[in-house]
């Protein structure tokens, strides 16, 4: 490689609190009639004052805790001053130098990525531009928004995508956001720059921020496009412009939106309408204690506790509901069938967990086992015998010749002399080979 890619991310996640960040209006704005979820506070009427939503503050802290951040006992809100028609007060209540969460990290694909900060702010209204006018909907104004900023630790689009998927999974596990990108509940802004100096430890003198990305697939495309585009400019001996670009789906390219020669001056100062937040260590500890089992822990536990393959465990833990369904089914089965068989049934048969009760699923499995008149112990014995009689199977498998499994299945079938669930046999063999 003759160049170095530097990527950092800013991700905004909307919290699914019942009410907005600083008023009692419903935060559930999606698809609602414009300007029906508003009050003096989120309209920024003269004299209205913000009162922070305690639930949102706690959820923000929990996101930080899930990302291994440090939670300072003292934090405060600040005003970020700028003019925009969708910004009711002429400033956004955000956090500047003392955010709720600082200095965390996340592990992905065996690599560690730094989390700079996680802070709390409010969403803006929404503008719709028509041919001769612009419309403002304030339903979204004041919806709680958490911003998660990473260190510039990424060097490829694949890791970025994996990070974003993990982040989405974590906030969903926490139950604090649905993080649905189509609905704008999760917004991604990668900052990308490229350096021809592979050994340099310093950051390039420019960066390009890409906005308007509403899927993980596009983020990958946008980053790869940017790397190529910037590299081309650099190879001509020029420096790419510091700017904000947008992802254009139809062009399959990023396009320049706004040149950002100098940093904006937001004239931050402490928000006088909200007293600083002083957590006690007990509060912080109890928030941490109430964090549910997160994806990584669950994945590890599923592999260990239920002897699932990493592949199966990963699928089952992608969504909490799925994982809970599996565990419920294991409980219902009372060892009449194995967790592996339950996992296979859920994954291979693409079980709709909203339609089939765990008890029904187990019944189904047991029934199919019966029709095949197959006893799990009988199967286990057969597998063991085959592996003992053919030591070559294990040797080949270790060398990576997975096709040998097919041979083993054939041998087991031969011993059992009846039609059985091939997946069940395969899993049993894999289990024994571990």
């Amino acid at each position, binding site marked *: 490689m003759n160049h170095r890619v530097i990527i950092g991310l800013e991700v905004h996640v909307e919290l699914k609190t019942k009410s907005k960040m600083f008023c009692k209006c419903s935060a559930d704005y999606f698809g609602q009639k414009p300007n029906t979820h508003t009050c*003096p506070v989120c309209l*920024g*009427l*003269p*004299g*209205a*004052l*913000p*009162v*922070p939503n305690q639930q949102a503050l706690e959820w923000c802290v929990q996101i930080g805790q899930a990302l291994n951040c440090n939670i300072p006992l003292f934090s405060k809100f600040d*005003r970020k*001053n700028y*003019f925009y*028609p969708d910004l*009711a*007060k*002429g*400033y956004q209540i955000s956090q500047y130098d003392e955010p709720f969460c600082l200095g965390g990290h996340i592990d992905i694909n065996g690599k560690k990525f730094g989390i700079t900060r996680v802070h709390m702010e409010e969403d803006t209204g929404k503008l719709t531009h028509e041919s001769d006018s612009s419309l403002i909907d304030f339903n979204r104004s004041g919806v709680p928004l958490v911003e998660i900023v990473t260190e510039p630790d990424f060097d490829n689009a694949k890791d970025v995508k994996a990070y974003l998927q993990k982040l989405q999974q974590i906030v969903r596990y926490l139950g604090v956001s649905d993080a649905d990108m189509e609905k704008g509940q999760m917004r991604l802004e990668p900052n990308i720059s490229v350096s021809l100096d592979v050994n340099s430890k310093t950051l390039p003198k420019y960066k390009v921020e890409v906005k308007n990305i509403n899927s993980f697939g596009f983020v990958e495309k946008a980053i790869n496009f940017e790397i190529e585009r910037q590299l081309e400019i650099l190879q001509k001996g020029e420096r790419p412009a510091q700017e904000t670009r947008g992802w254009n789906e139809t062009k399959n390219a990023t396009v320049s939106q706004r040149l950002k020669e100098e*940093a904006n*001056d937001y*004239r*931050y*100062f402490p928000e*006088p*309408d*909200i*007293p600083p937040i002083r957590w006690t260590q007990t509060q912080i500890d109890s928030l941490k204690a109430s964090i549910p089992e997160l994806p990584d822990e669950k994945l590890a536990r599923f592999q260990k506790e239920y002897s699932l393959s990493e592949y199966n465990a990963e699928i089952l833990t992608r969504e909490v509901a799925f994982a809970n369904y599996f565990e419920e089914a294991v409980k219902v089965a009372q060892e009449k069938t194995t967790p592996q068989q339950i996992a296979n049934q859920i994954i291979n048969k693409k079980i709709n967990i909203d339609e089939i009760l765990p008890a029904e699923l187990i019944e189904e499995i047991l029934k199919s086992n019966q029709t095949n008149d197959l006893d799990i112990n009988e199967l286990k014995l057969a597998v063991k015998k085959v592996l003992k009689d053919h030591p070559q199977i294990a040797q080949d498998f270790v060398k990576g010749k997975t096709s040998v499994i097919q041979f083993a299945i054939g041998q087991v079938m031969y011993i059992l002399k009846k039609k059985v669930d091939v997946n069940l046999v395969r899993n049993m063999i894999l289990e024994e080979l571990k």
Partner: protein
Amino acid sequence: MNLNNLTIKKARQGLKDKQFSSVEVVKDCLEQIKKNDLNAFITVCKEEALEQAKQADELIKAGQDLPLLGIPVAAKDIFSTKGIKTTASSKVLENYIPEYDATVITKLKDAGAIIIGKTNCDAWAHGSSGENSDFGPVKNPWNEEYVPGGSSSGSAVSVAAQMTIAATGTDTGGSIRLPASFTNTVGLKPTYGRVSRYGVIAMASSLDTIGHFTKTVEDSAIFLKVTAGQDKNDATTPPTTVPDYEKELSGNVKGLEIGVPKEYFIQGLDPRIKANIESAIKFYEENGAEIQEISLPYTDSAIACYYIIQPAEVSSNLARYDGIRFGNLRDAFGEEAKRRIMLGTFTLSVGYYDAYYKKAMKIRTLILQDFANAFKKVDAIITPTSPTMPWKFGEKIDDPLAMYLSDAFTVTANIAGIPGLTVPTGFIDGLPVGMQILAPHFSEGLLFRIGNAFEKAHDFYKHTPYES
């Protein structure tokens, strides 16, 4: 007797005893407003007030007893009033009609008060004379050539000129206490957070306090009992209990330690005011209080500190009036508002923030410590409210710095967040003078006790601009 001349206490008694009706009280006030051309009101709510008075009379007949039932109260035109135009005395909000009531307005209505009208003030509460109103200056009823003090000019004048029985005001740097001392009224600036700011158009949010003008200290106590308390809509109001302030009016100051800060009796203080305040202090000494000279060393940094923090917050608070939603464009802002927006935008900018805003916040802490140290030695502090007597219209209008200095003795309480009370102490050449009493956070009861003792012995409130 003109019913508009009554105090809250006397009017409530008379209404309860059915000596007269609320409609009669309101009519006398409306008559007084009509008779005088002081420009104290932006909006007079004649029909609504009479209607509410009628309802109040029915409630009184039915035996209802509320602290302000049937009492007309004027509100500074910076308090949001549902359905009633609220301009902040600025052309920017010329036609703005709020869709909600400020918490204080709701509390006043719930206590039975009648909003008789909205009073004129310096636009956005920026000013010390009332001359910054976009709707013309308010005149001082004691001498119409003189300013009544600001920014809550119309509220002070409406009480002084007997157009209403009480009025609300806001005090960010002295905007209640200064006009109170210029008009022979009692003006209370409560502790920061004691009274909800919700619905009151913000000037400088960390300094704004919501207070009132009354004829007597006793009335001020009755009024605060209604307006004070935690508000779920204002995160800066703590749950501190609201005492029964009237019970604190013992008239006894024996044994109280009263501090007199030497930094407030300096060159530049009108010697006549100095003599006036010294005689008031003497009164307390004669009545058993211990008088001590104290020092508040950071007093001389207060105006500088205030004129960094306040415009910074102003520049942010006025940003919403961007011409998109409130009708008039930004060029409708007056000179003083523009000056403060510029100052504040500058001091908050990158590269200047540390030198100005951050430093001012450090001085703010020092001033707070000044008072904390003083209150270890004394129970309360007495100072002049203003270094000068009311001035003639136009005298300081071209010299913003001279205008700013008239708040030298009052801004300290806003910076520290402590309560302050102005009580009339007499007249010099026919114009009123007032003293300022300061006490620790949430000690309004003590202020009332000290102020009331003086009032009982002197009764300056019985003098009106219209006495024969």
